[in-house]
């Protein structure tokens, strides 16, 4: 899928969780949202994009995708 679109969507999600005073909870929030609502192919693609440098991902989105890669066992398979 168009990676710019996925990056924009991940950034949109992270901007919602940015107001969370506890950053760890914000990161968790982004990762869980991606896990619950994104089709696995999209998740794989955004994780791969992060491994390749993650151009365009805002800081919280980047952390969220990192966390997603950690907790999403299927992406490692």
């Amino acid at each position, binding site marked *: *899928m168009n990676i710019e679109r996925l990056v924009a969507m991940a950034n*949109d999600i992270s*901007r*919602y969780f940015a107001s969370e005073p506890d950053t760890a909870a914000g990161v968790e929030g982004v990762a869980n*949202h991606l896990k*619950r609502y994104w*089709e696995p192919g999209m998740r794989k693609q955004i994780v791969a994009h992060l491994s390749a440098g993650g151009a365009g991902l805002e800081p919280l989105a980047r952390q969220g995708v990192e966390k997603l890669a950690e907790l999403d066992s299927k992406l490692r398979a």
Partner: protein
Amino acid sequence: MLSIVEIDRGTPAVKSDRQVTLHIDGYSISVPEGTSVMRAAAQAGINIPKLCATDMLEAFGSCRLCLVEIEGRKGYPASCTTPVAEGMQVSTQTPKLADIRRGVMELYISDHPLDCLTCPANGHCELQDMAGVVGLREVRYGYDGANHVFAKTNHGDANPHFAPKDESNPYFSFDPSKCIVCSRCVRACDEVQGTFALTIQGRGFESKVSPSQNDRFLDSECVSCGACVQACPTATLSEKSLIDRGQAEHSVVTTCAYCGVGCSFRAEMKGDEIVRMVPNKDGHANHGHSCVKGRFAIGYVSHPDRILTPMVRQKISDPWRIVSWDEAIAHVASEFKRLQATYGKFSVGGITSSRCTNEETYLVQKLVRAGFGNNNVDTCARVCHSPTGYGLKSTLGESAGTQDFDSIESTDVVMVMGANPTDAHPVFGSKMKQRLRAGAKLIVIDPRSIDLVRTPHIEADYHLKLKPGTNVAILNALAYVIVTEGLVDEAFVAERCEHDAFEKWRTFVAQDMHSPEAMEAEIGVPAALIRAAARLYATGGNAAIYYGLGVTEHAQGSTAVMGIANLAMATGNIGREGVGVNPLRGQNNVQGSCDMGSFPHEFTGYRHVGDASVRASFEAAWGVPLYDEPGLRIPNMFEAAIDGSFKGLYIEGEDIAQSDPNTQHVTAALQAMECIVVQDLFLNETAKFAHVFLPGSSFLEKDGTFINAERRVSRVRKVMEPKNGYADWEVTQLLSNAMGYPMRYTHPSQIMDEIARLTPTFHAVSFEKIDQLGSIQWPCNDDHPLGTPVMHVGEFVRGKGRFMLTEYVPTSEKVNAKHPLILTTGRILSQYNVGAQTRRTANVMWHDEDRLEIHPHDAEERGIRDEDWVGVESRAGETVLRARISERMQPGVVYTTFHFPGSGANVITTENSDWATNCPEYKVTAVQVTRVSQPSEWQKRHQVFSNHQQALLDAAETS
């Protein structure tokens, strides 16, 4: 004319805790205090003659037919305006009363034509009935004198009292010569509809019914709801369909297939032909009222554009080939199997319809999950109310509105945000207006001056005319006032909500950056107004929020829904009558399609596909292993199609090529797919890109249920055979069987039984129970066997209510030098959604073209005059519309409706979407507007393409 089967008790029912016992004609009768003598008599089966009284209206007391004698009282009081009293002794039939009544009727008939046998009301005329009841045997006055009956006087001159028929309204005829000036039409317009379009003009013998200032009906303020036609006791106001076809002989209760109000109707039938649609007095959502769409705009069902045979083609540039059902179904199954074999299991998917029944929607998602073996299923709620599902689930614990419509009767403060009920939910809009006329306060939060802001006998206390895209900012500012001015209902919050989440929210929202003063420039509303509105909402008694797509269709749609839920929880306005959070749903079955598991990440009842125990219950019932990961959402499907990984789509009753944003992106995606199957009534915009067309059935042609905005499950009943041969659920079942996943339902009730077994909130729902109760609001289960009108009573569905943080993030769609205006979109009363149905009815007489509303200031700057063609350009595309100069919008904001495909409203809208659900940001697009002399390039291409597709349809051949 009233329904042919309903009993009219003359005056409305009264609610009272006290019963009063009286004697009517010797019978002892107990009724609630405040009931009229007329109604009390009717309840005992005693029918007092009447003309100006009907139980759809308040008593008026003008016709003098319903007089009675009451022991100990002087004279002959009108039974309609006389309330019952304890021990009252009433006589309804005495020689004196008979005399008076005959005299009254004689006068009526002396100015009424005697063409009963050829009159459309014949058989159901109340005047005729009363003449019979009172025993009228002669009319001594003759017709030589002044009258309203004949066009010419005895001397051959024009009769000054005569007015010819007004046939201007496409659906009903107004024949003043048959009018008895009972005022029922005028009162129906005032009391029921709230439009005040009709009046009695003149006095005494000069009195006559006049639409607006003696205009024709079509030119008047009349909104054609038909309440006057229903109320008319004679043939003065008659449906043209009744005049054409004659009286109906049977009546079937069903549910309207237009908006999310879900009105109950009686289809009054002659065999399998509909004579008229009459709103059901016992309908729990509408209580006998309707709008122009539900009552009149049903002609699309038999429109010649409707396609009744399956069609197939290899490429979209080929002519269609008419094929048998067997061939069409076999073709789809073999194509989908081929695609899955070639491109993988996940290369196909389906879209369920919010216009179809729950049973049909359920089957499509079952076919995708169990038959296709993936979760690539979504529904058009994606593009309207998906943020409602997300936002209300997160905060309150259930993805649905909290109240029933009747709850508004106990509301003191009505807050309407991003909704236009008088246009988009007209029957509920009328109910809201009734409550507002009775004194409830009104706060409107909307960038446009919708009708509710100022309409007869109603004026908003506060209209917060905010800039599009600042919903979350204004919700935070309102919350700031509530929190910092000590207006929080601390006891409610302490008892009912999560403590930590509330404290976090309170700290967050009390920051000065959220104050009305800090945000007024961004929001565009004076801080004082925001403060005053917040105080009214928090302290004005029972406060209820009603919202629509102006809240959800934003980049922060889900955040705004959570902001609304936060306000309701903070002020304790949830969990009882008169309060709550009420999403006004767009289509008839949006709530149902969401409830039925249409979203790619959840099963019925909003349970995630990753939940192992829920999934196990479906696996056991459906007999196949199910995928535990979310599938593609509609916009993801488009991306995947352009990518080459998504190849086949089964679309039931949804027109994504017209209704989804960024049309050119959508059509590129459709063209990238190998097998698009469209099941619909018409060759809609999407079908022009389809390879298989499966004809659909209308709501009149099948059994099933719809769920309206109040979570109300109502029956849809078949009144005629499907013109296309199959109900939609049967088509899905044929397809599933051909795909190798067997389905063996013989009636939709079996599908509902399966839904009930698998869904805790539906456990006690069945067709049989709906038939008994009329309708049921879910949750309906062992805890709530009769359903649940108001949710979150005593405890939230999720246990404790959860406050959510709602940071305002300005949309990335910003005005700049190139695109200096903001375009926002909306609806109009006479048209519905993409217009596929209403454009094929006489409703086009009210709205035959989408216009661009532009403020005089913006228009003048651009040299634009009313009616000029103007180009509207965004970064996504350009379209051309005619301008309408209007001050409904503030300067800098333009507005259009989107009911006609050629308007290309979605050519301009962008791919921006809600962060949580991908619901498109339809309501905010930066545009430039310029005067032009020709259609846009897209419109020219669209016209050529549409003409070509029409030619391919016309050339369709039987192979």
